[in-house]
Structure formats: structure tokens, C-alpha cells
């Protein structure tokens, strides 16, 4: 069919957006069942028996029909805009992820850079939420969040840059193609360490236990989201899980070879999905196994351990590539 390019791109974007939202809602169910099994219990099973398939739909419907309570003393404009500002970058990152060599909304030449830059815009939304709520707890948590996410975005970026240097390009499809022989996660020493650093930085950038001092459920209940209810809360949850899934996808692309896998080419996107879910499950497994650590300990780990380590790693990668000769593997 011959649609004008604008309409075609709009259609692609629409499809991808909906697919992402659906995936994100079902990933919450996956997390809950996985966590439940690790805790000797079943997880959602009642709604949509026997496995709770309709639970995410039920949750979404419930949040949509809830009353939207705005605190009287809240800063209206900032408060109302915060979920949107939080959600949009988290959705935008999916625009640059190719699911197969030619399947994706936009396979930018600067794909990885765009992803990393846009994904750190969510901090603005986060802080807006904490500030606009006019609530001491929310403010405290938002301040901690800004601290933590900024501190961990640097090691995150450096760890993500290691495959970029190894592949010699910022374009995601080129990075995946460069992993034909050996996935970067298994690349001797620097690849493996970079993957590990990437996972740790993901945990922290996503505010997942053991780094979830931001929400710290048992201290500052729900952190910056504490004053949000109904659909705004749903948007924030959506944004969080979308970001989580987005970084899992990026991890699968950069380190686990994206759509590469045995079998015919059309199996590629399924391999990709599987690898991203694997990264997600590993992160979830860590999340449900550890207690959290204090904010000063979190920052100490970032600045004193992770940042120097990833810097050194990046330099080492540069050396390796330079001595091997310019270009790919």
C-alpha cells in the first residue's frame, strides 16, 4: 500500500506504542508471578484463572475508574504535569529500539546516544512529582532520587558505551550485527565486566531494590508517588515499568546479541524478546533477594566503586580496539 511516509511512520509509531504498553502491563504480571514463586506462594490467580491472565487488565481498569485526588496545597501545574513528563521519555526510548534488522520505528545512526539521553529525562518528571505534591515525604524521596539517578546514570552510560566502542558505531543494528561471532556479554573480561556493571547500574537507575531508597516502601511509603491516585498513578507505574523494560531491551541489544540466534530470520524478534525478558528476570531476581541499603551507602558505591570501575573499563576497551585495529570484530 502506498501511504505517504508521514502516515506510515505515524502508523508504525502507533502500533509500537500500543505493543509496548501491552507488553509493559503483562510484564508486571510476569514479575508478580515470578516473585511469588520465589516466595513459596502463587501470585495472582483469581482473576482469569488459573494463572491470573486478566489481572493486569483488572488493575488498569481499576486505576482508570479511581477518583483523582489532588492535594489542596499542591502546586497544580507541576503536580498535574509530572506524570506526563515522567512517562513521555520512558515511551520515547522504544522508538529507537529495532526488533529486527528492519523492524523498528527509527533505527537512528545515533541510536544509543538518543536512548541514553532521553531516558535520563525522567528525573525531571520525578522531581516535579515530588515537588508538586507539597509533601515532606515526597520531597525527601524526590531529592534522594535525583541524587541517586544522577550518580548512577554515569556508570550506566559508560557501561553502555563499552559495546559501542567494541562495535565502532552508535547505531543499534550495527552493534547487533557486530555480535555475530561472540555476544559482547561473553567478550573476555571487558565484556563480562561491562555487562555486570550494566546490570548493577540498571538496578540503581530503575530504583529497584537494593537501590530503591527512592520509594523505600517501609519508610517513605511510595516516595514521590505518594500523593498520586488513579490514572496519574497508572501513568507513573507505566513509565517505571516501561523504563525497566526499555533498559532490558537495550541490555539485550548491546550485550546479548539482540535478535541473533539459531533458526530462521523471522525468529529473530522472538529471540530478542526472550533475551530482554531474561535480563528483566535477572534484575527481578536480584530485587526480590536483597534488602536495601542506605542512601549514603548507595552513593558511596556509585562514586567510589562503580564510576571509576566503568571509566577504567571504557579506557581498557578503547585500548583493546585500538590495538586490534579500527573497525568491528
Amino acid at each position: 500500500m502506498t501511504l505517504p511516509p508521514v502516515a506510515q511512520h505515524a502508523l508504525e509509531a502507533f502500533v509500537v506504542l500500543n505493543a509496548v504498553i501491552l507488553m509493559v502491563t503483562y510484564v508486571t504480571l510476569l514479575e508478580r508471578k515470578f516473585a511469588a514463586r520465589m516466595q513459596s506462594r502463587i501470585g495472582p490467580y483469581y482473576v482469569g484463572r488459573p494463572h491470573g491472565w486478566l489481572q493486569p487488565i483488572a488493575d488498569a481498569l481499576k486505576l482508570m475508574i479511581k477518583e483523582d485526588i489532588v492535594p489542596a496545597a499542591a502546586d497544580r501545574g507541576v503536580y498535574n504535569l509530572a506524570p506526563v513528563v515522567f512517562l513521555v521519555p520512558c515511551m520515547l526510548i522504544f522508538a529507537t529500539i529495532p526488533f529486527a534488522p528492519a523492524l523498528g520505528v527509527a533505527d537512528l545512526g545515533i541510536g544509543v546516544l538518543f536512548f541514553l539521553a532521553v531516558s535520563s529525562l525522567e528525573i525531571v518528571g520525578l522531581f516535579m512529582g515530588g515537588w508538586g505534591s507539597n509533601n515532606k515525604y515526597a520531597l525527601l524521596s524526590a531529592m534522594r532520587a535525583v541524587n541517586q539517578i544522577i550518580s548512577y546514570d554515569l556508570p550506566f552510560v559508560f557501561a553502555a558505551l563499552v559495546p559501542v566502542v567494541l562495535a565502532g558505531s552508535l547505531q543499534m543494528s550495527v552493534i547487533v550485527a557486530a555480535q555475530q561471532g561472540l555476544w559482547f556479554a561473553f567478550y573476555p573480561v571487558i565484556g563480562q565486566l561491562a555487562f555486570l556493571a550494566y546490570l548493577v547500574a540498571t538496578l540503581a537507575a530503575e530504583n529497584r531494590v537494593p537501590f530503591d531508597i527512592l520509594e523505600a516502601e517501609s519508610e517513605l511509603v511510595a516516595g514521590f508517588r505518594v500523593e498520586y491516585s488513579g490514572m496519574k498513578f497508572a501513568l507513573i507505574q507505566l513509565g517505571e515499568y516501561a523504563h525497566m523494560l526499555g533498559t532490558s531491551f537495550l541490555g539485550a541489544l548491546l550485550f546479548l546479541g539482540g535478535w541473533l540466534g539459531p533458526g530462521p530470520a523471522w525468529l529473530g524478534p522472538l529471540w530478542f524478546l526472550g533475551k530482554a525478558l531474561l535480563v528483566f528476570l535477572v534484575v527481578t531476581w536480584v530485587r526480590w533477594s536483597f534488602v536495601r541499603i542506605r542512601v549514603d551507602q548507595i552513593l558511596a558505591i556509585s562514586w567510589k566503586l562503580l564510576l571509576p570501575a566503568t571509566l577504567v573499563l571504557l579506557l581498557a576497551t578503547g585500548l583493546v580496539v585500538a590495538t586490534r585495529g579500527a573497525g568491528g570484530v
Partner: protein
Amino acid sequence: MAITLRNLFRRPVTVRYPDVQRAYPDRFRGILALTYDPETGEENCIGCRLCEYICPPQVIKVEMLKAEKRNYAKTFTLELYSCEFCELCVQVCPTDAIIMLKSFDLATADRRDLLLDKDRLHALGLQFEPSWATGNRLRDMQAPPKPARAEAKVEAKGETKEPAE
């Protein structure tokens, strides 16, 4: 982390209530009920009000009705919403009239449903399975053996122990 992974593959311990009920032990202290004498079909309660006096939160109210051969309870109200389920009323009952059942399934949205009157208590007694404990059994279990009654006591304990197995 290895521990959580190991637990991932263990069977969950959840009991899918209300689809699946768990087995209640014999001595379960559930909701209260009044009983009938199995041989004569008469009510066991003689309206002596011992349970009313011993109840710590004072949820039982009894009125006695005097008759020729034996007394009855004219009215017997039990406020189940305040009941502590301590089983003291069961313990003191001389005729094993009030017992506890192996069920607690009486949740309701209206508190007045839990203000049990005599008919309701008798109906509950027929509806659910009774627990092991009755007044005489509990008192026999607790009483120190008198030398003259040592053998009778052992027999009674032997009998009453069997249902508990």
C-alpha cells in the same frame, strides 16, 4: 540469591481458600453453638448461667426457665462479634450444652447477623462439625487424679483421647 532461586522451584504453600479448605485440628476453637442431647433430643442447656458469669467480655446473656424435671434456658443470646473465643464458657458448662465448632465461616457485612440467639445457636450446632472439646472432657483433662477415681479417670481419658487421634 541462591536461596530464592531454590525456592522458585519449591511447591508454593498457599492454600487456595475459599476454593480449597484446610483441615482444621480437632480442638479448633471456632464459632459457638448449643447442642441437643443425642438420645432424648432435648436441649442440653439447663440455664444455669455459669457461662454468663465466666465470660470475660460478658457476651452471653441467659434467662432461666424453671420447669418440673429440669430447667431450661428461656433466652440465650451470644454476641459473637465481641466473643474472644477463649473457650471458658465451654469449660464450665456442666451439661456440655455449649460447644465450639470447627468453623469460623460466619463473616458478614451486618453485625446483627452475629448477635446469635438460641435458635440460631442450635441451628449452627447442627450445621457444622463440632470440635473435640466439651465441658466435661476439658475438666476431666485438667483435674488432678483423686486416688479413688484413678482408674475411672484413666478410662475416661482413654475414651476421650480417641477422637483426638
